[in-house]
């Protein structure tokens, strides 16, 4: 008698646990990763939220959110502050390494007009490769020391490469490989996960509050946010890489940043770039 009631109790408890567990999980038909659906929903969210913004304009971040800023920015684009960094990048890119090879030997089409294909999923390695990572690998493969991911040289190089792709639509591919889908999903998870003492996720600012202010800055929408990278920020008085932006965003919300080009960062860049497929490359960008 006692045993039976004990079993009854256990199974009841189990049933309750299962129900509760099922109740807390978000209801999704399957747990299948569907980047195409995600990108569609992502783009629709922003175009619905900002019906007056032209689709291509989302890549201009805060300028697409505020008319006065837009006007000032357009004037400045006639004489952009990133000119010097861009020139430096072009010079650096064309200078051969000590062993005689150069960057153009590492990239398709000699590295010109290819930025919109990055990041890509390397099926041999099973990981996401970003443009910054590819540049440093090119250097190391040719006996050159790698550049810091957060300093001027990498920023200048990526600025030049972005410039050669200006206007081209972002074209990120996700091969039908479970590891690539997982990388996309992990990137998505990183984007929406809250972190730091301020408990912000990337989405807190760039999905929930684009066009609104955080202190004195106007927030950019997440749609097209990678298209303008790297960016010359007035705040930095210089050109800054994607790695710099990711790590500083982390520390600003009081989260200890990971190392530049750690998996999480590569994956979130992959995710954000993919969901902005079709939008034009506008880099290098100028920002407040």
């Amino acid at each position: 008698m006692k045993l039976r009631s004990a079993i009854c109790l256990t199974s009841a408890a189990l049933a309750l646990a299962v129900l509760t567990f099922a109740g807390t999980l978000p209801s999704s038909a399957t747990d299948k990763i569907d980047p195409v659906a995600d990108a569609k929903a992502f783009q629709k969210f922003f175009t619905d939220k900002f019906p007056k913004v032209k689709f291509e304009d989302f890549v201009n971040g805060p300028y697409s959110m505020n008319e006065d800023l837009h006007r000032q920015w357009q004037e400045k684009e006639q004489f952009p502050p990133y000119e010097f960094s861009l020139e430096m990048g072009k010079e650096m890119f064309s200078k051969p390494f000590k062993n005689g090879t150069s960057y153009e030997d590492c990239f398709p089409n000699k590295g010109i007009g290819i930025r919109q294909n990055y990041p890509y999923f390397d099926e041999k390695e099973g990981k996401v490769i970003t443009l910054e990572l590819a540049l440093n690998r090119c250097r190391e493969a040719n006996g050159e020391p790698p550049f810091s991911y957060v300093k001027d040289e990498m920023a200048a190089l990526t600025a030049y490469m972005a410039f050669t792709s200006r206007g081209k639509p972002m074209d990120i591919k996700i091969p039908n490989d479970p590891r690539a889908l997982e990388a996309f999903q992990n990137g998505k998870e990183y984007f929406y996960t809250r972190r730091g003492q301020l408990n912000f996720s990337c989405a807190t600012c760039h999905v929930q509050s684009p066009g609104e202010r955080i202190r004195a800055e106007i927030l950019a929408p997440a749609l097209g946010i990678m298209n303008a990278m790297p960016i010359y920020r007035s705040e930095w008085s210089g050109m800054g890489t994607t790695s710099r932006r990711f790590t500083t965003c982390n520390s600003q919300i009081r989260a200890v940043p990971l190392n530049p080009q750690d998996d999480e960062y590569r994956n979130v860049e992959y995710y954000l770039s993919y969901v902005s497929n079709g939008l034009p490359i506008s880099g290098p960008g100028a920002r407040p």
Partner: protein
Amino acid sequence: MASSIRVRATASGETTEVQALIQHPMDSGFVKDAKGELIPAHFITQLTFEHDGKKVFAADWGGGVSKDPYVKFSFKGAKKGDELKIGWIDNKGATDTTTAKIQ
């Protein structure tokens, strides 16, 4: 060696609009480097634009102006094809000048 001054001047009617971007560190002298040492002050102190021998724009700057300053202004009395002469001097005594044709 390329000039530190990029300038574009466009005449529209009797008004000429001038934009200039100058490459200069504009160190205020108050900022510390990674080692904790002060980066010495190094900034443009005077900037002048001349047309037809006359100063049309003059600026007296200090450390409060940011790196790679951008200037924009308009003036009257010039026409397309005229020359604009730009020059600056900084606190270390370095100078640079350039001329541009008004378009």
